């Protein structure tokens, strides 16, 4: 065997080999920490609460007696709030994104200021939005501690996320599509409405659903705008309300062990709602995902 042939067998002692292995181990460990923690939590919650996920929990009102206590009004309110959130955030969020991507002149200072502002708003803690809601919606506008105020404050909370997701989706539509449409004599309105938005819809829908599913898990801002913990009737738009996370929060702070089991059961319900939403988002992305 000649020396030239032998050269290709490096003997496994390349410089950087050790670093490479350590890095892989670190990556594996990071993933493991996340998965194990999450898995433990879910298993624990299911073991604690699955026994109590029954029609009483899903439909009955809260009660001082854990045997008859349910989260019916809270579940309904969470669903209402999710629907209101979609109705509020999608038009405003998509409108803002279309303006920023298709109409705004980046050379104008107010457009750049708007952009920076939206990025920053996405990082504001949710409790701050709660305070804003209390001061501005509940007291300032005199809306009171009602479901609508809760939905509006959650809208403000997730709007920056929806705007950012919608902008990404709009930006992912290739410029050649816009050029092709303009070259055929389409106006800007026609280009946006008939080419850009249809092409961006899967991305916008996915981003919006993920944002909404984050919002309906929020507790802190709802506590501030006055979500009650005991609501014995089904929610209305302008009436007292509670929400599933608030109900869970309240039950976990009760002294009886039964209420903590109820909280675990309610967490299972909340998780099921969120996972359904997220699964729908993933399905949308795969079904109508990017084609070019």
């Amino acid at each position, binding site marked *: 065997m000649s020396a030239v042939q032998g050269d290709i067998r490096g003997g496994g002692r390349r410089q950087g080999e050790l670093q490479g292995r350590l890095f892989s181990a670190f990556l594996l460990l990071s993933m493991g920490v996340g998965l194990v923690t999450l898995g433990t939590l879910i298993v624990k919650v299911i073991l604690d609460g699955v026994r109590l996920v029954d029609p009483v929990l899903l439909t009955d009102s809260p009660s001082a007696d854990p045997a008859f206590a349910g989260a019916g009004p809270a579940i309904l309110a969470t669903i209402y709030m999710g629907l209101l959130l979609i109705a509020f955030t999608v038009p405003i969020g998509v409108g803002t994104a279309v303006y920023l991507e298709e109409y705004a002149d980046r050379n104008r200072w107010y457009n750049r200021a708007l952009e920076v502002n939206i990025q920053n708003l996405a990082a504001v803690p949710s409790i701050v939005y709660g305070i804003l809601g209390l001061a501005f919606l509940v007291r300032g506008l005199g809306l009171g501690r009602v479901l609508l105020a809760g939905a509006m404050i959650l809208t403000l909370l997730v709007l920056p996320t929806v705007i950012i997701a919608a902008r990404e989706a709009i930006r992912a539509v290739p410029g050649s599509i816009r050029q*092709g449409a303009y*070259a055929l004599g389409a106006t800007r309105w026609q280009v946006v409405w*008939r080419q850009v938005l249809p092409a961006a819809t899967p991305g916008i829908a996915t981003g919006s659903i993920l944002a909404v599913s984050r919002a309906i898990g929020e507790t802190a801002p709802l506590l501030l705008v006055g979500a009650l913990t005991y609501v014995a009737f089904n929610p209305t738009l302008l009436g007292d309300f509670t929400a599933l996370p608030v109900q869970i929060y309240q039950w976990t702070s009760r002294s009886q062990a039964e209420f903590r089991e109820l909280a675990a059961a309610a967490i299972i319900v909340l998780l099921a709602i969120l996972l359904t939403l997220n699964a729908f988002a993933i399905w949308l992305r795969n079904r109508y995902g990017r084609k*070019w």
Partner: protein
Amino acid sequence: MTEIETPREAPSVNIGDVSLENVAERQRPSASPEVRDAVFQVKDVTVSYSGNPALTGVSLDIYRNYVTAFIGPSGCGKSTFIRCFNHMNALIPGATIDGTIMYHDQDLYGPEVDAVEVRKRIGMVFQKPNPFPKTIYDNIAFGPRVLGMTDNLAQRVESALQQAALWDEVKDRLKSSALSLSGGQQQRLCIARCLAVEPDVILMDEPASALDPIATTRIEDLMHELKKNYTIVVVTHNMQQAARVADMTAFFSVNQGAEGQRTGILVEYDATPKIFTQPSDKRTEDYVTGRFG
């Protein structure tokens, strides 16, 4: 909104099929420019991006029912120039155009000219096929729909596909996605899309540069066919392509300024055989013989 009149009747002087060999003798625009209609008359056009000129002082006429090719090295401004004819440069922030371009004796950049009206008459095919992520039918129907030409839409779609020599390949799958077509088919789809709005002029910006040789040949055959009814302007990197398809050829080059700024200029514009066999400018000769660029 200004109504640009598009003469629909046949050209006043019909010289029939112009073949490559005799175009020089039969039609030397420098010798007898009045014989053939000029679709565009370009006078001293300069295009700048944010104040930096990309192309300066271009004057030429583009004749009806001819294929006119723009050739030249990268950065010579030929793509920039072709985009002046349908106001596509207006989509680029900071782009300005000086000089005049007359389109059938109307100022293309006059104060009341509407870019939508211009693009309706002057279609464009791009370098990379850019079908919309929609069905084949909806791709062709898009132009007529946005322009309100929806009478006999199905008929219009079929006729456009037939003119682009694509009908036989797609007639059984008009409802499938345009993205399922091959690259060459996609480019012919883009040509059909442009024909569906019945333009007067078709601008093609390196229409075959992303295609294989067979697909390229089909596009070139199509250009020969289409020039009977349309005026075609084509930018190409491929000199053989210009020699094969064009009646007139304009050679652009890059001028290096005193401070190192590079701007495109028009070096020579003449009948294609003249450009390729007896160019009057040394720079053209160097380029077409492969000594430069």
